[in-house]
């Protein structure tokens, strides 16, 4: 089973538009949205939910004011400044609380409750291109890495059950916790960049991360015609690092028009952008030696 994850470092380079189009041309694949924080793939693939599950992860502390003796030990020991002093008894700010249990353990009055934290929901769904596993972390929650790991596990199980050889995942931006969780152990990373200073800078960071986790990667240059010199710099960077250039897409308002129509690039512009996505997929499939390769 192969697991391909679409990443970018910098946000907004076109990961989701590309993933949706690849989901169409790469069938059969289990589709997965690993951007659990701000997931957008569902807006293009209109998944019908088959199952909804609550995601609980970690705990949060809560002080019972009636039992608190105001000794101040919790505030002293908390390294996240989550204990807010108040007149009756201090309170715990859930936005700061890391869920480490230190205050609960060291409170001499045993006045701090330890409640499971509900962080989001995850779903099994059906789309017009096959089954999809996705989630929504509740806003301002953490533990997105654990939710990403759970989604990957679900996608792998589904792929095994249905004998589908491929998992195609839309990844989160950045290079931190959820990205590491998306990337480690994946078969291949498709990195979407753009010919801008930010795109190039963050491409280098995500390529370093792929190397760190020993995941092979290839690069797609989106909006390649925005700046010829920058696009050349990126091509040179890729050559210097031995990275495959998988293809490129133009700066084209049709990408937005497709999004507004809730269609993939391959549905909206089968001859233009769609054809170019098809070539990108051929390049990926050839790298992985997939049967879908022409």
């Amino acid at each position: 089973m192969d697991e391909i994850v679409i990443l970018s470092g910098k946000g907004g380079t076109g990961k989701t538009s590309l993933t949706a189009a690849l989901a169409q041309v790469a069938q059969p694949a289990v589709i997965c949205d690993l951007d659990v924080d701000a997931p957008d793939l569902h807006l293009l693939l209109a998944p019908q939910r088959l199952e909804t599950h609550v995601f609980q992860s970690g705990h949060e502390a809560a002080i019972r004011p009636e039992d608190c003796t105001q000794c101040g030990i919790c505030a002293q020991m908390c390294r996240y400044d989550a204990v807010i002093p108040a007149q009756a008894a201090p309170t715990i700010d859930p936005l700061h609380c890391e869920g480490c249990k230190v205050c609960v353990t060291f409170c001499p009055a045993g006045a701090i409750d330890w409640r499971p934290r509900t962080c989001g929901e995850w779903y099994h769904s059906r789309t017009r291109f096959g089954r999809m596993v996705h989630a929504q972390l509740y806003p301002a929650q953490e533990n997105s890495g654990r939710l990403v790991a759970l989604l990957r596990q679900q996608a792998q199980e589904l792929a095994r059950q249905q004998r589908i050889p491929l998992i195609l995942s839309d990844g989160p931006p950045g290079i931190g916790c959820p990205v590491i969780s998306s990337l480690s152990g994946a078969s291949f990373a498709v990195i979407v960049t753009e010919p801008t200073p930010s795109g190039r800078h963050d491409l280098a960071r995500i390529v370093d991360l792929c190397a760190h986790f020993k995941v092979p990667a290839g690069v797609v240059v989106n909006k390649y015609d925005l700046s010829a010199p920058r696009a050349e710099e990126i091509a040179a960077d890729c050559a210097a690092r031995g990275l495959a250039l998988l293809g490129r897409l133009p700066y084209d308002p049709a990408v937005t028009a497709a999004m507004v129509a809730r269609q993939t690039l391959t549905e909206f512009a089968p001859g233009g952008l769609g054809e170019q996505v098809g070539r990108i997929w051929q390049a990926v499939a050839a790298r992985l030696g997939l049967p879908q390769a022409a």
Partner: protein
Amino acid sequence: MKIAVASGKGGTGKTTVAASLIHVWPDPVAAMDLDVEAPNLHLFLHPEEIGRCRAFMEIPEPDESRCTFCRKCSDICQFAAVKVLGEVLMVFPEMCHGCGGCLAVCPEGALRPGKRELGEIIWGTAGAAPFIMGRSRIGEAMSPPLMRQVKAHLSRIAPPQIDLIIDAPPGVSCPAVNAVMDADVIVLVTEPTPFGAFDLGLAFKAFAPLGKPMGVVVNRAGIGEDAVYRLCERQKIAVLAEIPYDRAIAEAYAEGRVVADAVPAVRGIVEALARQLQAMDRPAPKEVLHG
């Protein structure tokens, strides 16, 4: 006043707006890039570097000779960073959240304070503006600890009375909330597309509990659809500025230029935005009552 420039969706123009605001800001101002995973503000402000330092977090270092395998450390650890397997004490440094619980709970001194590198803090000046940024180490999972240290370092390089513009990371989970939680005003940059509108809705939900004034900048106005505007109306959050969809703006950005300098029409828009933001920084109602 402190202004955080944030967004739900990535790539909507946070850095464009933050860099432009710095360039037109009428009062003394400092710039802080808290997108430590993918910091980009320096690519546009070109700060002259004054210094840099590596940032660390305290994590446990095992001393097995003292360990009695009582498991108090592995019991308190919520992050699977300390484990006692039979008669083996193991620390997984990358899993540690630095809470210090195991160090405090170990009765034998079998865990000593050690450290893990989070990344680096870099500071300098961009024109007249003090500038500071964090850059996380490749492979470091946690951003908020480095962000906290960048924020703490700011007081060493900028006088407290000057204004501050913060470039925040994308998303609406812990790093994004951490970047905006100390701001006086949150500016949400979005685009009039289905992705922009959906993620803006998430940002409203995530940031509303902070109780700070929020305003929206619609970038690439004219492409897409009007769902973003309807959302702002429903949520009663003002659209403070619209930056038109224009290939020339995207090309200026691609060339590494601050668009408020490169495109005269944008300069006027950002100057008006700066005035509105300054007007939003009013004292909280509670203080008015006591005053």
